[in-house]
């Protein structure tokens, strides 16, 4: 419960950076923080008290494994979303560098003003 709330605070910090800050790289960092928070929230939802990782080893009994393993489904979704987050981060960094080259600044308001 408090874990969920702390996680939500993390998401809100990212949202704050995305909305208020004017530096483009700060906005990118805000998006990255929000991504961390969402990934962690999905994994927290799948955790089981005194659970073990959903990986079977040879000395393990299958019946007890089924009743102690944590939820593998959110892990599978998060695993792909982390790598896709890296792809979108590369896209955003490319955009930021491109904007800097064109306008000579990272300031969002300044860029809006220069664009006219």
């Amino acid at each position, binding site marked *: *419960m408090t*874990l*969920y*709330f*702390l*996680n*939500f605070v*993390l998401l*809100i*910090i990212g*949202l*704050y*950076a995305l909305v*208020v*800050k*004017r*530096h483009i*790289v*700060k906005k*990118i*960092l805000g998006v990255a*923080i929000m991504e*961390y928070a969402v*990934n*962690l929230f999905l*994994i*927290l*939802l799948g*955790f*089981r*008290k005194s659970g*073990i*990782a*959903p990986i*079977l*080893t040879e000395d393990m009994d299958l019946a007890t494994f089924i009743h102690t*393993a*944590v939820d*593998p*489904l959110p*892990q599978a979704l*998060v*695993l*792909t979303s*982390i790598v*896709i*987050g*890296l*792809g979108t*981060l*590369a*896209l955003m*960094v*490319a*955009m930021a560098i*491109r904007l*800097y*080259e064109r306008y000579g600044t*990272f*300031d969002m308001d300044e860029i809006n003003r220069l664009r006219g």
Partner: protein
Amino acid sequence: MDVVFLLHLLLVFMIIGAFITVEIKNMLSAVISIGAVGFTLSMAFLFLGAPDIAITQVIVEILSLILLIRATVNVDNVAIEEKGESVFHNRTALIFVGIILVFAWFAFQSLAPFGEPLMRVSDYYLNNGLIMVGATNFVTSVILDFRAYDTFGEAMVLFVSISGAFAILRRWKREQHKDFLRIDREH
């Protein structure tokens, strides 16, 4: 030590790191402190019983740090000073953040409590995974067999984002560096 207490500690550390990232003036320090947040996140994944994701998070964090340092180093890496009018912006944003947090506290009451997940779908995967797929890593069997079509779609999302980054960078290449990709010569 109790896992839940440790997770609280790690989350508080992550919140402090994220706050420093948002508020610090030097951009290079901001990037480095977001690296600290990412590595702590990987530790949290390890305590939550997800070694797959912990490995992925560590490796991806290194690469994203390299990309972000590429973006900030060599250019003027000082954060932009706030103007006078943006104080009002800040205050309104903070008020709305407070309202959202209060509502979130009530919304989280209706979720399943921590430590008792809903396993309706996952029970099927755990029961039948070894017989139907034969992989002992159940995360892999969910990714690549039960939900293989999802993974295919996500690989395509990666393809789209990467080709978007390439499209943004390519116009520059046509101007000056025509030798990088031969795609440019065809035009």
